[in-house]
């Protein structure tokens, strides 16, 4: 007969179990984002496609937002949650600015975001966040998050639908994993090349990535934005 496992009950008659239909508040709007920290700069890049299932809602809905001259945040996952979280962060930063007379540092925003995410531990923001910016010493900083607030500072990270395609490439090209090359920090030109190549490649294979790529470059001079085309199919 059938083998049973502990706790399983086998009966010889049909049983009925109520089926529950519930409204599902979450939706995955797709898209990919990455951030790479350099010696004195930080790059935050994300595609701009917003999807829902097999449809494209819009070809240009930016996923990255400039929070200050030193900090840029990018979020993927459920766009409604991401946008709400972004607004909450911006509002908190404004309160901080008025209370303390200065802009929140990247590290301070990083900790605050973790707390904000955990506060919704039992009805999470379905958002994969990456915070990129310059730390108080002017060095590039990247903070990575999971949807409930676990965070860590890293050199480079990508998140979103094509993260599994890009992260290994970044591990090899930025951190020189499995290579005999001496570890060194890459120049801004090299990092931008790696970023663009990551996205064009991801666009080939991931249906949720494409349309346009927006790259935010944070340096001591401020934040500069570049936009380039990606394949629209």
């Amino acid at each position, binding site marked *: 007969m059938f083998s049973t496992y502990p706790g399983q009950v086998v009966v010889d008659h049909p049983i009925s179990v109520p089926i529950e*239909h*519930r*409204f599902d*508040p*979450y*939706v995955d*709007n797709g898209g990919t984002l990455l951030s790479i920290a350099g010696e004195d700069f930080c790059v935050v890049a994300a595609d701009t496609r*917003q999807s*829902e299932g097999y*449809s494209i*809602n*819009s*070809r*240009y*809905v930016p996923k990255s937002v400039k929070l200050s001259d030193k900090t840029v945040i990018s979020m993927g996952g*459920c*766009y*409604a949650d991401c*946008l*709400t979280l972004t607004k909450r962060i911006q509002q908190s930063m404004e309160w901080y600015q008025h209370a303390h007379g200065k802009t929140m540092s990247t590290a301070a925003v990083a900790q605050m975001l973790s707390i904000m995410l955990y506060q919704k531990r039992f*009805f999470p923001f379905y958002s994969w966040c990456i915070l990129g910016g310059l730390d108080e010493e002017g060095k590039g900083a990247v903070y990575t998050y999971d949807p409930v607030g676990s965070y860590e500072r890293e050199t480079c990270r990508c998140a979103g639908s094509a993260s599994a395609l890009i992260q290994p490439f970044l591990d090899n090209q930025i951190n020189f994993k499995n290579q005999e090359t001496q570890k060194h920090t890459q120049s801004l030109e090299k990092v931008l090349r790696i970023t663009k190549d990551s996205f064009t490649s991801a666009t080939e294979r991931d249906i949720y990535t494409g349309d346009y790529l927006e790259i935010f470059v944070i340096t001591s001079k401020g934040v500069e934005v570049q936009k380039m085309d990606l394949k629209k199919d």
Partner: protein
Amino acid sequence: MDHFPTNWGNPRSEDVDNYNTYPVASHIAKVPHSVTQIAGYGHTSGHPTSHTQQPVVTGTSVLGIKYKGGVMMSADNLASYGSLARFRDVERLHQVADFTVIGASGDISDFQYVKHLLDSQMIKEYNADDGHTLATPNIYEYLWRVMYNRRSKMNPLWNTFVLGGVHKGEKFLGAIDLKGTPYQSPSIATGFGSHLAQPILRKEIEMRGGEENISEEDAVQILKKCMKVLFYRDARSMNKFQLAKITDEGVTISEPMSVETEWAFAEKIRGYGA
């Protein structure tokens, strides 16, 4: 009225309230005389509070396109009750401020509630009397927050709204769905339209090299073409629709119109048309 034949001929039971004729929740304590009047339930139906899980009377696609002079939207005049074409003169495009139109697909009762909310908001703004009126991006943000907060309470307004307008020379066209997802695009189509009409809208914009190269006549032709396709292929549509035009001169919502369709080929079909 008791629809259930098994109940006919028997005394009605006070314990069963299928149509929620008692209030759902009540804090008023009464002398108990039936099963529903147990501690905590008071004069209630005895059911726990439940939330909207499905739309009842619904509208189908709403389309929107940006063009040279402004924004144009279209929606048919049908409100369906499942597969029944119940209400055939419903206006699903509604003017909000001087330069904004909201189009609704999904549950019509929720749309009526949202119309009431928007009217209240407009009155509050008027009473503030500070020289400002709500522009399309402001109404969009307000609507988005309402939709997002309702979904976060697990009791959504079961609609996808399209908001179109002009503000200070800038054209605005965006959509918000029942889960609170907002997005803006040069062309918008909800429901079946997202599959049947959106490809046509996007191709027309691309062919002409952008929304600035679409004249008003072009926009009307493009929307009519889409409405024709939708009438042919969407089983919950009707060949009676309105067009809304928003320019910097204001809002015009047309009288109901229809498109020419060809059905003569149907006589030649045998079986399922193979």
